[in-house]
């Protein structure tokens, strides 16, 4: 609780906190996208032949595609030829300990408030920190290794565990899935890889901080998490990016594979630069996240989305096995000119599958927030259940909240429930809090956090505090 109040204190007049650029020497490929660039990326990363042909196949497909237009967002088409597709922090040598890491980089971590040493010692969080596209620090490897857990940059997994990567890469999100996923498949540079062997319960929250650092560098993360039979893993992802005048494209792909009776929890706090109050700058976030649940497996997506100029994101579950469970808990905050079109897809294929969707949208300023969700129960998915709750909270009278629920049920033994509400923070609520001595800004933070409580409580402790802080910071100046 005292933590909460420390946070409350910090809120007043805080600008986007993470707007700095670290002066890391970067190696960059000149702008543009063609076969040679893809070959170069693959060569630089010393990739095997099968991966290069995977990339080229995706690129071939991309040529015939254009970006999807169905989302409730408005933006200028991104010219893929104006993007530089590779930006690696120059490797002087391999790092065995923090002492060998670029001091500039360590400074970056400090500014972000991440002390790796502290993280290691106090929180039990293993960090695989990604700056730009190359992973430079991996910790807790040894402890994880003892349990047979593999947690490393995907580039390393490609070298050291090609059989796993080859088997599962693209198995959940195929190269043909959608425009942005196809683009990612062609040009992805790095990301995280995790494999938990049968029967193992990962004892720590696995965590990755992503960061877009080089001006004009699109970032194409690729993440693959595999939980083998009867295993459990909780994965945390948190993001910040520096202030830039130009739009930055981010098109990540995350694939989760939950094998029989396993469980994956995937939590995200997304705080990329949203642009200024006039909508200048900011990250374009087009992400494809999907997981497959085999028999009796469970996948939970929890996301706190406060950043980015545009968020286009639908973490989904394919409930392939009987008795599998999918969950989606989301808070999406938009302020100023931000636009978010986010939600989930729950595809019920197995019998007795169940899914839960709780979505909380908070819209302020001139922003637009949309929930878009699909619940699809197939003919053979007998006795399946879905519960959806989609709430919107509006602040002021210039923002918009929209709900686009899609339901398809092809058998008559399943049930779907949907609840939706729209509310406003009332002047009476604010006056009530202020009469008790709580400032307006803090009152908004308190009320919004209360509204989002059902989702926030799903986050691991380490993130819950950060998430509350983010909600407050992102709504600064939104009333009055």
């Amino acid at each position: 609780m005292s933590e909460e109040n420390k946070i409350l204190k910090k809120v007043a007049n805080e600008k986007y906190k993470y707007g700095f650029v670290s002066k890391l020497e970067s190696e960059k490929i000149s702008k543009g996208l063609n076969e040679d660039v893809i070959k170069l990326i693959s060569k630089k990363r010393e990739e095997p032949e099968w991966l290069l042909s995977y990339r080229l196949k995706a690129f071939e497909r991309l040529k015939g595609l254009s970006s999807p237009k169905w989302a409730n967002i408005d933006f200028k088409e991104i010219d893929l030829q104006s993007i530089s597709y590779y930006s690696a922090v120059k490797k002087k040598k391999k790092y065995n300990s923090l002492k060998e890491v670029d001091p500039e980089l360590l400074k970056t971590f400090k500014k972000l408030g991440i002390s790796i040493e502290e993280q290691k010692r106090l929180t039990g969080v293993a960090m695989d920190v990604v700056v730009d596209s190359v992973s430079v620090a991996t910790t807790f490897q040894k402890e994880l290794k003892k349990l047979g857990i593999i947690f490393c940059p995907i580039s390393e997994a490609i070298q050291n565990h090609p059989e796993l990567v080859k088997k599962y890469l693209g198995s959940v999100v195929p190269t043909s899935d959608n425009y942005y996923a196809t683009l990612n498949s062609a040009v992805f540079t790095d990301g995280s890889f995790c494999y938990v062997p049968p029967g193992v319960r990962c004892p720590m929250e696995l965590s990755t901080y992503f960061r877009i650092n080089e001006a004009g560098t699109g970032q194409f993360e690729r993440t693959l998490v595999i939980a083998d039979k009867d295993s459990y893993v909780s994965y945390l992802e948190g993001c910040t990016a520096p202030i830039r005048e130009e739009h930055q494209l981010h098109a990540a792909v995350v694939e989760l594979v939950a094998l029989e009776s396993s469980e994956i929890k995937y939590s995200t706090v997304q705080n990329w630069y949203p642009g200024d109050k006039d909508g200048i700058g900011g990250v374009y976030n087009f992400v494809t996240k999907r997981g497959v649940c085999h028999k009796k497996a469970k996948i939970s997506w929890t996301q706190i989305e406060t950043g980015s100029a545009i968020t286009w994101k639908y973490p989904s579950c394919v409930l392939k096995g009987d008795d599998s469970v999918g969950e989606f808990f989301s808070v999406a905050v938009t302020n100023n000119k931000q636009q978010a079109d986010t939600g989930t897809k729950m595809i019920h294929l197995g019998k007795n599958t169940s899914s839960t969707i709780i979505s909380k949208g908070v819209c302020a300023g001139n922003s637009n927030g949309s929930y878009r969700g699909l619940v699809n129960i197939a003919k053979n998915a007998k006795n399946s259940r879905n519960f959806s709750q989609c709430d919107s909270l509006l602040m002021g009278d210039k923002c918009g909240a929209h709900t686009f629920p899609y339901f398809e049920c092809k058998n008559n033994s399943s049930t779907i429930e949907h609840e939706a509400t729209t509310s406003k923070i009332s002047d009476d609520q604010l006056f009530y809090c202020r009469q008790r001595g709580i400032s307006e800004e803090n009152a908004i933070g308190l009320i919004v956090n209360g509204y989002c409580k059902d989702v926030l409580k799903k986050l691991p402790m380490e993130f819950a505090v950060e998430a509350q802080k983010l909600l407050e910071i992102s709504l600064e100046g939104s009333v009055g």
Partner: protein
Amino acid sequence: MLKISNLKTIINDTKILNGINLSVKPGEVHAIMGPNGSGKSTLASVLAGKEEHEVVSGSIKFLNENIVGLSPEEIAHLGVFLSFQYPVEIPGVSLMTFMKACLDQRQEKLKQPAIPASDFIKKMRETCKSLNIDPDWLSRGINDGFSGGEKKRNEIFQMLMLNPRLSILDETDSGLDIDALKIVSSGINMLRSSSNSFIIITHYERILNYVVPDYVHILSEGQIVQSGGAELAKKLEETGYSEIIK
């Protein structure tokens, strides 16, 4: 402690308070009665700094400071508490979180040391007990799904937690059954001391049997038209307003 001089207010071009004069000394309990629409709730709101009311003339001095134009939170930090006629619901914000936020912000603004968590929890528990409140309330959302009577008891709970110098109770007794009225009254009497003062806005003489006022004022058309001791409320109960307001 509180001195209101010739206070006139308007809201949306409508005159509401029309020259209020009232002086409250430390330890005094003042009851304000009056027909519907006489300006009782407006007076409470203006004292608490609600911004839609415009003060066109006069002054409000609290502890020798003019509080006209101060923000609601500044007035609260000086020690003014308003028990709302219609307390709002704030789902998801537990009473415990809320009280902690209130106290922490006040201590910080007044440059006072923070209240240790153990003292805070102890005080919460004791206050629950004295108002016959189920400790489960502490983890429930503020007033979320509460009955009218529970909401009023919750207001008194917050009042005791914040220990204000001046408490303004806006029809806190309305809608209470006799048991709840007794509990609310005992809460007020607990806080009553030679330094704490109260303004009790009410329609009924009933509560004044439990919390005996030093003064009773009758408000009509934005002015205090008659003042007296506790006996005035009794007289009012018998005769109604029409005999007094002519």
